[in-house]
């Protein structure tokens, strides 16, 4: 049953997209036949590959930054012994009860030329109203900031879970043997929570790499990402499902390879944890 599910809702759609990419399957009439021209044009045309690297770079920045930010939060919640940890966790997740779109759009109000941040700067006299900070909205910065905000809880939760399940006796033993708190963090806590950290990193990196909603709302011309290109090839200008499919498959391919590499990297850690 699970295999059938996977076949129908995962393998079959990808196979259809692959058929589109080779032009053997198409919605539009006209002469069609097996061709690798879509693939060739993407490989030869460095514009798409450069855009892909730009998106990788942006997703990496988002993922690394929020893992670094979320770790102390998760650490505090899991290990400080506070009784209110689940309430605090709930507070962390609370904004996520509202719509994704609404949360993205709210940032426009904060970041715009007449937004909260700029108005504050005008009020303090740091910037003149004629010279607002314009890089806050419709920029790469805006996309990175908003994506980071959106995905933060998804990062904090796996790290929290891995820290929660940490065997406290190991920390006690380290302390009995005279290890400093920093030493026991480096030798015990961090390595044992690493699978959670890597999982968290992936939770963010994979979806943000193909992200298109946030960049289309706050990214402007410079925050345009690979995902936007796929959407536009399928639906704007003139339908180019062939190139769109090639780009989509390339993205899936990269994600699969990365997943395999990282899961191998995770194995020894898990053995060590056992």
């Amino acid at each position, binding site marked *: 049953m699970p295999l059938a599910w996977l076949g129908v809702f995962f393998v079959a759609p990808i196979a259809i997209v692959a058929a589109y990419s080779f032009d053997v399957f198409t*919605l*539009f*009439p006209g002469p069609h036949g097996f061709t690798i021209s879509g693939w060739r044009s993407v490989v030869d*045309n460095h*514009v*798409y590959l*450069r*855009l892909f690297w730009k998106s990788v770079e942006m997703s990496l920045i988002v993922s690394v930054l929020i893992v670094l930010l979320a770790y102390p939060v998760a650490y505090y919640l899991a290990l400080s012994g506070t009784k209110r940890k689940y309430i605090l966790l709930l507070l962390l997740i609370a904004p996520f009860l509202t719509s994704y779109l609404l949360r993205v759009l709210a940032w*426009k109000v904060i970041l*715009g*030329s*007449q*937004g909260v941040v700029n108005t504050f700067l005008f009020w303090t006299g740091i910037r003149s109203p004629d010279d*607002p900070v*314009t890089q806050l*909205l*419709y920029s790469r910065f805006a996309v990175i900031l908003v994506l980071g905000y959106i995905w933060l809880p998804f990062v904090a939760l796996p790290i929290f879970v891995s820290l929660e399940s940490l065997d406290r006796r190991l920390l006690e033993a380290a302390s009995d043997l005279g290890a400093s708190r920093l030493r026991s963090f480096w030798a015990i806590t961090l390595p044992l929570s690493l699978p959670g950290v890597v999982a968290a990193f992936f939770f963010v990196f994979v979806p943000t790499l193909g992200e298109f909603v946030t960049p*289309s709302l706050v990214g*402007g*011309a410079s925050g*345009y990402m690979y995902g*936007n*290109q796929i959407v*536009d*090839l*399928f*639906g*704007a*200008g*003139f*339908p*180019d499902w062939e*190139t769109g499919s090639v780009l989509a498959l390339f993205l899936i391919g990269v994600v699969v390879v990365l997943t395999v590499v990282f899961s191998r990297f995770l194995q020894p850690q898990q053995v060590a944890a056992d």
Partner: protein
Amino acid sequence: MGSDREEAERRFDRQTALKLAAAVGGAGLVAGRTGIAGAVRTFATAETGRLQVLDWAGYGNDGGQSMFAQYVKQHPANKPQFTYMTNESDALAKIHAGLKPDVFRPYVGWVKYFAQSGLVQPWNTASIPNLKHLNPFMLKAGRYNGKQYGIPADWGFDAILYRSDKVKPQAKSWSLIFDDRYKGKIAWFDDLNMLTLAGLYLGFRDPWNQSDAQLAQSQKLLSAKKKNVRLIWSSETNLWEAFGSGDVWIAYAWPNDWVQMKKKKLPVVYMRPKEKPIAWVGMLMLLAGSPRPQLAHDYVNAWSSTASAKWLEDNYGYGHANTLARPASSDLLTALQLTNPKAVTEPNAHLDRDIPRRAVYARNWEEVKAA
């Protein structure tokens, strides 16, 4: 829900048929042969199922009801059912994927493409009484091979909107949307039309049908100047937000955007570039094989009425092909030159037209965005 509705329609159809049958019988007694013939004709042309319309958001039951109020009055039992399109490319994909609308509304540059594709059929102009009020230049643009494939509806210009307190243009030219002095304050429109415009600015003879070398030059210009662009808008609300908040000072815009920004009390100018603006016109098209052609004609006739046209101008700020309609706003009247039927065409503006190599243009434009 859907099947309940269909069931209700079927029931209604049966009732109508019974009534018609009764009427035919009654008419036979009273009016004799001609009465019967008339009733039979009515029965024979009665089309079943709801009229299917594929249109842009804002033109269906989501606020655009006034555009087809006359149709609903005429056919209270057959209200149109809507599916929405985000652009012509999306409509094309939906139709090829099996959607069967009776009517849809691409823009003038697509008339030839759809007429040649065999997906649409010409209108019977005699069945659209309001046609006589429509702008003859726009009607001409809706014809292909002498047949009326497109019935013109909404229209407007592509030109430049700018903040007069912040921007001092060096010339009345499309060059303003490339101007390095206003880096980070410029908005372009997300459409392959940007290449046409670049060609127009570069002085090519036929910007709609550029050679490979010309297209490369247009693409190079856009790619080089993209660094000045803050936003490439695809929805007007997006533009209004950015322009209204001062994030953008110069925009590729439509006349209604000018009206909207004036309403916000912003000092704005709607510039007519010396290379001339491009005029666009929405064209209602009838799908080939539509099982409801008569209803479709009535629907389009409603859209073409002066009342609908005025409503469109007053509420959406676009022009309408109906030359009798006059908007309440004198700003819009001026911007669209509504008293001049030739406003959309030479020597006043370039009426948008078919792009023979649309797929190539589209790819070039996508590359500009990706660059």
